């Protein structure tokens, strides 16, 4: 995946990782450390340390993110940014993520980028802060990460509270656009760090947002659940209008399949902001039953030129894979770093961090205002779109200015769908 890596390491630091490894193997590891990193030359490319879970239980998303990072190099080169990736696999393990972050910094990464899961992201954020190396978070929704007063950590992804807020508001928009209103909902969510903080956010926001429906039952399920028959039975028994879900990918498939089998057809299956239902695997496994599921998430802005470029390149490079928000946010993270590097004029971490703080990028790929960071390092200009699966493709249906089609609500019954 990353042929560039070895060469970068050996070119940029006098003691490369290779030398270290050999030394360690020979038992001389203690001597091979501590050498100073050669000072940076002015015209050299930006070295981005990419930390993603490419193996282990999060490998699926880690590899998806990696594709966004790989594509950013040629696209940014066309925009006049020289970027080199230094890839590291966190193995879905925060401990490994931490050591890998140290290693990337030692090898001369100007900026770190990653890490998808909140536990690893939190661990890497500390390393970045201690070492004073900027860290741009591509994805990681745990609100706590940007509440630590970090100076070198920047997040271009909504916190779970922001996600829930944006996602819930869109319910009203869907009702308005279709002239149909729901009165009740059942919330079914995965009980992992993401699902649980989403549920917390939703419960807090529901009364404030004045939504016309009530959550009549909340069903949490184990992220390791092997099947969801019982969970869906329970949801069906609640007999609500909307089936509101916070899922991952595999469980989203299990859930919808089970809903079809149990003939449970609510007015809509809507996620206030979670992965799963817009992914290619979802369509491939569920066929026609994947249609009409709706996810309210930050999404590609069809009006942005850069989004089109990215999509074209992506379809060419990875025709088998799904083009979804993991790709977009990882791409944007590299873009943010490259943009700051250009303005800072050097790889000096302090200068880079200052440039990052002053970021303002209007030409981006995701929906929302220009990318800007507040004093906590959080981008607040992120907006969710309602993305409905129509004709076997995730399609933006709201907000109207970005919409590619009109929302369908209520959705047709399972049996009313043709082949």
């Amino acid at each position, binding site marked *: 995946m990353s042929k560039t890596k070895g060469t970068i390491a050996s070119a940029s630091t006098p003691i490369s*990782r290779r030398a*270290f490894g050999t030394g*360690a193997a020979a038992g001389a590891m203690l001597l091979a450390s501590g050498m100073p990193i050669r000072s940076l030359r002015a015209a050299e490319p930006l070295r981005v340390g990419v930390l993603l879970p490419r193996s282990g239980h999060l490998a699926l998303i880690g590899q998806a993110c990696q594709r966004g990072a790989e594509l950013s190099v040629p696209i940014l080169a066309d925009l006049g940014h020289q970027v080199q990736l230094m890839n590291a696999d966190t193995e879905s393990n925060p401990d490994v993520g931490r050591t890998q972050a140290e290693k990337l910094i030692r090898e001369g990464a100007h900026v770190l980028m990653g890490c998808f899961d909140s536990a690893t992201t*939190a661990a890497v954020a500390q390393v970045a802060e201690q070492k004073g190396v900027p860290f741009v978070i591509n994805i990681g929704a745990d609100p706590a990460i940007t509440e630590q007063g970090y100076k070198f950590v920047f997040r271009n992804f909504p916190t779970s509270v922001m996600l829930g807020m944006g996602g819930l508001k869109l319910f009203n928009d869907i009702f308005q656009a279709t002239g149909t209103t729901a009165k009740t909902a059942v919330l079914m969510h995965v009980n992992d760090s993401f699902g649980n903080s989403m549920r917390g956010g939703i419960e807090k926001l529901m009364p404030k947002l004045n939504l016309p429906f009530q959550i009549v039952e909340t069903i949490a399920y184990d992220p390791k659940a092997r099947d969801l028959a019982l969970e869906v039975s329970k949801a069906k028994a609640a007999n609500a209008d909307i089936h509101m879900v916070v899922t991952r990918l595999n469980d989203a498939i299990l859930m919808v399949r089970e809903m079809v089998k149990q003939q449970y057809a609510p007015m809509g299956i809507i996620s206030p902001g979670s992965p799963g239902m817009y992914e290619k695997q979802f369509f491939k496994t569920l066929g026609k039953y994947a249609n009409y599921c709706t996810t309210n998430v930050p999404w590609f802005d069809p009006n942005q030129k850069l989004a089109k470029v990215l999509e074209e390149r992506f379809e060419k490079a990875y025709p088998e894979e799904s083009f979804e928000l993991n790709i977009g946010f990882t791409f944007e993270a590299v873009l943010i770093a490259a943009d700051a590097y250009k303005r800072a004029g050097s790889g000096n971490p302090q200068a880079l961090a200052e440039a990052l703080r002053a970021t303002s990028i209007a030409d981006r790929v995701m929906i929302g205002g220009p990318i800007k960071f507040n004093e906590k390092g959080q981008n607040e200009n992120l907006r969710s779109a309602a993305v409905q699966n129509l004709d076997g493709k995730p399609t933006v249906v709201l907000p109207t200015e970005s919409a590619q089609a009109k929302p369908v609500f209520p959705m047709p019954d399972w049996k009313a769908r043709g082949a």
Partner: protein
Amino acid sequence: MTTTAAATAAAPVRLPRGTLLLAGLAALLLMAPLFAGDYLLSVLILICYQAYLGMAWNAMMGFAGQFSLGHALYIGLGGYAAGALFVHFGIPPWIGMLVGAAVATAAGAVVGALGFRFGVKGVYFALLTIAFAEFTRILFDHWDWVGASSGLFLPVAHDQVSLWLLRGPPVMFYYVILGLLIAAFVLSWALLRRRIGYYWQAIREDQDAAETLGIDVFKYKMAAVMLSAAMTAVGGVFYAFYYNNLYPETIFSMHRSIELMLGTIVGGIGTLFGPILGAALLVVLGEVLTLLTEDLGLDGVKQIFYGLCLLIIVLWRPAGIWPWLRTRLGLGT
């Protein structure tokens, strides 16, 4: 035959050589931050941490022969106890450590008492320990006071260096874990040379024989489990304050229980140096494999080699590498 001969021949120089080696290693480790870079330091911290946990596990498995596959339980209890007390009440980790160790000891006592009283042995006992760890994981996933599945975050204070509050740079954490490792080493060494150590080994070798000799098997097995649990919990406190975030999913996971004992089995169960040697070997093996395989760009190939190495090591030296290396170095027992 030959090994005994070598050991006897080496007997006169045994003590000075062993002590010298130990002193040299200790000196090297103590001075490491002077010449080690950040990356190497974090690798050393990882080695010491794994070695410490391995030593804690060794107290139960190696000394008293009780196979635990669920030690993540004690790491988690220690880490969560100290972490939650610090987050909610600002109680310093050294006091939280006592609480965590006490909680873990109690948990160990429950697991041990139930297991030993009801005659749950071997694989069955190992599975009982897994069951307790997984049970607790799911419990913590639903316990809001410690953040449930959203995790518990310890506040990170910048520029604050306080050994009392365990807030500070990696070098501080290095010395803390090195200190813990040395303490655990000395404790193990001392215990093995006392009556309790001999009793443990008697139980490990043949429980029925030990019983006929009049040893209170239940009491000494309980002592081993509780000691091991307490030591492991202290390691968990270190983990909590070094990483500053705790998730039930990662801290109570079976992978952690497995990772924790690998080093000791590879190094040599029941020996004093086994856990240290094993942890160093495996951490370095992991780093070297990362280096060798990352250019291939094949995700997962590293773990394949890691698995193969484990397989080869246990088939080649089922008793661990340290007992073999010890005779090689002429250190005797």
